[in-house]
C-alpha cells in the first residue's frame, strides 16, 4: 500500500529510520532530492530528504524537533502516511572528481549517504567527516565505514572520535589530501561554518538547504534564499547550492520565523501525549 511504513528503527534518541512504500519515488529519485510528506489530514507539509532507495520503497530519517516530526517518529510499522510527494528538487551533480570531502551532521548524515554512495560508484575517493553532539548522535556509522576511504568522527563532548566540530575535521583532511569538491549536509549553522571554512580553503562546497517550505514545487516562495545576491527558491532551484554564496544569516533568521507557533504546537501536543523524552 502506497506510503505505508514498511520498517521503522531507532537510530538515536528522537531519531528514527523509516522505509516507506512508494514505487514512484523508488523508481525516480536521484541522490540529493527530497520529498514532501504530510502525516495526516490536519498535518503540515514538511520536506524530508531521501536516505536510500529500494525496489518499491524509499528510506527517510526523521528527527523529532517539533510537533510534526514527533508525530512522524511516533508512527509505527504498517501505519500509512497521508501524503508523500516526490521526488522534488534537483539531483546532486555527481561525476568523477577524484578526492571528495563529505561532511555530515545530525540527520544531514542520512541525506549525505545516497550522495556518498553515488560518488563512490563514480570512482571518487571519499573523505568523510561525521559530527554529532555525542557518540549516540553520530548515526549510520557502519554504513559510512563501508564506503569511506577516510573517516573522521567529531563529537562536541569528545565521547567519540575527536573532541571538536566538523570544521576541525575539514582541516585534518585538507592537510593530508588535495580535495576537488566537498558536500556538507547538516544543521544550517553547521553548513554555514563549513562554507566559511571552504571559502578560506578555496574549496568548492555544495550544501543542501532545508528552509521552511509549504508546497515544495515552486509555488509559494516560502523557501526563498539569497544565493550570490539572487533570489532563489530552494525547492526548485536547489536544494543544493554553492555554500560560499549562500546568505546564511538571512536563512537562519528565516528558519526562526515560526518559532512561537512551533512552540505553541509542541506544547499543546505534549499536553495531549505526555512526556516525549523516551522517544
Amino acid at each position: 500500500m502506497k506510503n505505508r511504513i514498511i520498517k521503522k528503527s531507532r537510530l538515536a534518541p528522537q531519531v528514527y529510520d523509516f522505509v516507506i512504500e512508494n514505487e514512484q519515488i523508488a523508481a525516480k529519485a536521484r541522490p540529493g532530492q527530497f520529498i514532501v510528506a504530510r502525516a495526516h489530514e490536519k498535518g503540515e507539509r514538511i520536506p524530508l530528504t531521501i536516505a536510500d532507495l529500494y525496489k518499491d520503497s524509499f528510506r527517510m530519517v526523521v528527527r523529532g524537533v517539533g510537533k510534526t516530526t514527533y508525530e512522524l517518529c511516533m508512527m509505527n510499522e504498517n501505519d500509512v502516511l497521508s501524503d508523500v510527494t516526490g521526488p522534488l528538487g534537483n539531483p546532486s551533480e555527481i561525476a568523477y572528481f577524484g578526492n571528495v570531502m563529505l561532511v555530515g551532521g545530525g540527520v544531514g548524515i542520512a541525506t549525505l549517504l545516497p550522495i556518498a554512495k553515488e560518488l563512490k560508484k563514480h570512482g571518487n575517493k571519499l573523505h568523510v567527516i561525521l559530527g554529532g553532539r555525542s557518540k549516540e548522535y553520530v548515526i549510520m556509522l557502519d554504513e559510512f565505514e563501508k564506503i569511506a576511504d577516510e573517516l573522521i568522527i567529531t563529537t562536541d563532548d569528545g565521547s567519540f572520535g575527536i573532541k571538536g566540530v566538523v570544521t576541525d575535521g575539514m582541516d585534518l583532511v585538507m592537510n593530508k589530501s588535495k580535495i576537488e569538491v566537498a558536500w556538507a549536509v547538516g544543521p544550517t549553522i553547521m553548513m554555514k561554518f563549513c562554507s566559511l571554512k571552504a571559502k578560506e580553503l578555496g574549496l568548492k562546497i555544495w550544501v543542501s538547504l532545508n528552509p521552511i517550505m509549504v508546497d515544495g514545487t515552486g509555488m509559494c516562495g516560502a523557501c526563498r534564499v539569497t544565493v550570490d545576491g539572487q533570489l532563489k527558491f530552494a525547492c526548485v532551484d536547489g536544494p543544493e547550492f554553492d555554500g560560499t554564496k549562500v546568505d546564511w544569516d538571512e536563512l537562519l533568521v528565516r528558519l526562526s520565523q515560526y518559532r512561537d507557533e512551533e512552540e505553541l504546537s509542541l506544547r499543546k501536543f505534549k499536553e495531549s501525549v505526555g512526556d516525549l523524552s523516551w522517544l
Partner: protein
Amino acid sequence: MKPTLKKTPMPEQEPQHRVKNFFEVALGYSEEQAVTEAKRCLQCPAHPCVSGCPVGIDIPGFIKKIKERDFKESARILKKYNNLPAICGRVCPQEVQCEERCVVGKIPGSEPVAIGRLERFVADWEADNVKERTVDPTVPKGKKVAVVGSGPAGLTAAADLAKMGYSVDVFETLHKPGGVLVYGIPEFRLPKSIVEREVKYVESLSVKIHLNTPVGKSISVDELLKDYDAIFIGVGAGTPKFMKIPGTNLNGVYSANEFLTRVNLMKAYLFPEYDTPVKKGNNIVVVGGGNVAMDAARSALRLGAKSVVVVYRRTEQEMPARREEYLHAVEEGIRFRWLTQPLRYIGDEKGKVIGVECISMELGEPDESGRRRPIPIEDSRFVIEADMVIEAIGTDANRFLLSQFKGLSLNKYGYIVVDSETYATTLRKVFAGGDIVTGAATVIEAMGAGKKAAFWIDRFLSGEYDPWR
C-alpha cells in the same frame, strides 16, 4: 408584468460579522428569489449573453427552466455546458462577460439579469436535492488522455473528454485536487466543500485523479508521451512574482501564494487545530490591485488584523480586481492607498518587517496595456507601519514542469505557445490551456480553454483534424 430594474439582491453576511469568520459571504438565492430573478430575463431571441460566456452556456435555456420551477432540468442544461457551475456561479466575473451583454442591462437605469447568481442557485439546488446524479453513458473510445494539473482548465478538459468516452488520467502535484480553487481562492468566497463536490462530479465521469504526482518528477514526460494518445497541460501560472525590493526576505513578508496556500489549502486559520501556522499581523500592507490582493487582504482581516491597507500604484479606475470584490473589501474596512509604490521593506534587528517605505505616483501616458503608466513623484517618500506584508503582484509560469517538457515552445514570458484555435502546442499530441498559456487570468477563461482544447483533442484523436499537419 414589467420586470424590476434592479437585480434581486443576494443575501449576504453582514460585514461586521463576516470579518470575524471564514464562512461564505454571499449566502445564495432562495427558490423564490431565484424565480423572481429568472422572470427578469426577456428570453430575447438574440441572447447575446451566450456569446459572452467562455463556455457558451445556454443561458436563456437554464433560466427559462428556473422560471418554470423545473430546477432539475435547469441543472441538466447547465451541466451540459459547464462541469463546474457552483464554482463559476461564485467566482466568474459575470459583469464583464454574460451580464455585460444582457439586453435587460441595456435598458436605461436597469441592471442585467443576475446570471451568475442564478447559475449558483441551480448548481446548489441540484447538490441539495438530486441525490442520484445520473451520468449519461458513453461509448468508450479506447483512447487515453493525460491531463496535467487539476485546476479549472484541467478539470474542465478532463470532464468533457470523459463525457466523450475517453479514458482520462489527471495528474496533480498537491495533495488535494482543484489547483487555484483550493489553494488560492478563500473559503469565504468559494467554500472548499463546493470544490470537493464539483471534483466528485468530475470523478463520477470516470476521470481518475492522481494526487501527489508531480509530472516531470514522479512520472516522466516521456512516459506520458508513450502511454497516452494525447496530453493536455493545464498547470496554471503558479510561481509568485516578487518585486525584489530590499527587504523582500525579511520575516513577515509573504507572497500572496504562500499566504493564501497556508490559509486555504493548509487551513492555517484553524491553527493550532491544523498544524500549519500563518503569521497574524496587526498592521498589514497588501501590495497589488487584483483579485488575489483582495483575497489576501480580506483573509488577513479575518485572521484578526487591526488594520489592512492595500497599496496600488495606479488608481481605483485601473485596478483589475472585480468591482464586487473591491466593494466587499471596502465594506469590511480595508483601506486603499492609490498611486502608491513600495520601495523597500524596513526590518528590525531581528530581521522582522516593521514598515514599508513607499513613494507616491502620478499617472502619465498610457502604456502597452492601455492603462496610464504610473510615474514616481520626486520627494514624496513616506513610511507605512506594518508587521506583515503580502505581495500580490502576479505570478509567472511554473518552471517546475515546463523545464521537463523538451520541444515545447515558450514565449518570452515563459508561457506555452499554442495555436489560438486548437490549443495545440508545438509538440505533437500535446495541447495546453489556461494560465500557463495566457498568464494569470480568470477561472472561467481557464475553463473555456479546457473546454475548447477538449473539443480539438477529440477531433485530433478521432482523425478528423491534425493540428500538426
